[in-house]
């Protein structure tokens, strides 16, 4: 009886000492957490992270997105949070008349020969309601023009849900301006 009680006490003390040893060892180890907002995680630790989506500019013009206005991303989005509006505008070009040798041919043939009137697509608006986005990545993967990518904006916080309804065209413009400024400073 006394023996078992003593053994129990002894076991308890041993358990306690082992625990204290481990705690003490860890106590001496360096701090692992990041003191946000005084510090933030390093950018290379964000590789692959999916933030909200943003538009990718055309290589030749940073103000215009690559988007062709096909609406695939809007259709595939499970949460229905993308809204794209585009319009077709005719490009000004001189009107081709059919080659004089073909003028006698029937009408439908000449139509084929005449080049179609060229149109250009302009993206009127591109809105993202980030409140509903489930960050699945389907839109980015399915965009035929490669016009979408994930941003690295991770420190988002606000009191109002309206702040998460992004106008991505505006965002692109801001980014382009920032880039131009940077380039200017470089060249100085």
């Amino acid at each position: 009886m006394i023996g078992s009680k003593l053994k129990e006490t002894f076991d308890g003390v041993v358990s306690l000492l082992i625990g204290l040893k481990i705690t003490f060892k860890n106590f001496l180890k360096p701090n692992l957490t990041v003191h946000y907002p005084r510090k933030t995680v390093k950018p290379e630790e964000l590789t692959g992270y999916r933030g909200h989506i943003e538009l990718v500019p055309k290589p030749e013009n940073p103000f215009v997105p690559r988007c062709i206005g096909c609406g695939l991303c809007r259709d595939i989005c499970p949460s229905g949070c993308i809204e794209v509006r585009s319009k077709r505008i005719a490009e000004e070009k001189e009107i081709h008349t059919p080659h004089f040798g073909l003028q006698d041919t029937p009408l439908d043939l000449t139509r084929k020969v005449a080049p179609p009137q060229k149109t250009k697509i302009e993206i009127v608006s591109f809105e993202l309601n980030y409140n509903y986005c489930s960050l699945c990545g389907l839109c980015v993967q399915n965009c035929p023009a490669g016009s979408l990518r994930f941003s690295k904006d991770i420190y988002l916080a606000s009191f109002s849900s309206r702040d998460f309804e992004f106008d991505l065209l505006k965002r692109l413009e801001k980014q382009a301006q920032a880039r131009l400024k940077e380039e200017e400073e470089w060249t100085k």
Partner: protein
Amino acid sequence: MFDLELGLDLSGDFYTRHFQPTPSEDTLILNMGPQHPSTHGVLRVILEIDGEYILRAEPVLGYIHRMQEKMGEVKRYEQYLPNMGRVDYLHALAWNWAYVGAVERLMGLEVPKRAEYIRVITCELNRINSHLLWWGAYLLDLGAFTPIMYAFQDREIVMDILQRVSGSRLTYCYYRFGGVSQDIDDIFIEKTKEFCAYLKPRLKMYKDLVTDNIILRKRVEDIGIIEEETLRKYGATGPVLRGSGIKYDVRRKEPYSVYSELDFEIPTASSKDALGRYLVRMQEIEESLKIIEQALEKIPPGPHISPQAPRRPKPPRGEVYFAVEGARGEIGVNLVSDGSAYPYRVKLRSPSFSNLSMFPEIAKGTLLADAVSILGSLDLVIPEIDR
């Protein structure tokens, strides 16, 4: 409608009233939850107690019911993918896999070998993550605060690794029909290897610190004994089943993917109590590490997604069932297709649902404090139960 069909009275708190009428003056009806910290989510348990002893227990579900099955019917096949990360937020990749696997089986889609290995690696990493969180949270229930801090330290590393390829830290949406959405890179492989080497001594430290600790032993030994018959009648699976000495694991018994090519054990414990379930989970972490190391050795080059993978699948008519082994047991997705782009019926079989339905039976006659230990040892994830 409920009134009409069954003549139920809907006034007041329906469930408590239904659970009563209070039989005698000696007993007390007690509500545990829905915001109780030990229920890990919003689970409510109505208890009838006599002193400290439980006479009857009844879980009340549905506090985070989201009608996932209906969502499956109104969304296209590919649009349902992000939902799978939200059914069980702790082992999201297993649910990803179950759904993707069901659609692949329906369409007869071949998955490249490399993709299968990537799935095995990431899914096992996720399993480790899930078990670690369970470990920390369970000990928190039992009154030990420090372990969850250690567990989160390890979880952070896994989450960083998985974030690199899948883009998210918790609710992954990584698998696609016919493969995975992104290939793994050298840094991923290197980091995973580092993690495997790192976790092994940690597990030993956990054993010294917690598993052998006399206080823990007193809280889990001979608590919540579940007999084989009960397990069978309620359809329990996963570590709960293996903790009672039954060697049933979908990865071995109904092999899917490349698990048949990998060498690993199915840990079981014969004690049938909470300690058995605890030990099974701790050993499973080691087995998962073994699987990951082998898979990293064996992973072949090749595409990470099948070239025939459809972006908008339209599977042929038919019905399939696809089961995978999640951290909590057998996850099953039963899919019925009528040949259109929308599923006709999606049924999700969640392991925690069956495991929890056993609770009224095992909690009978135990102490209230032990009921907390039993609930914790079942490893419940409430969103998975409520779906």
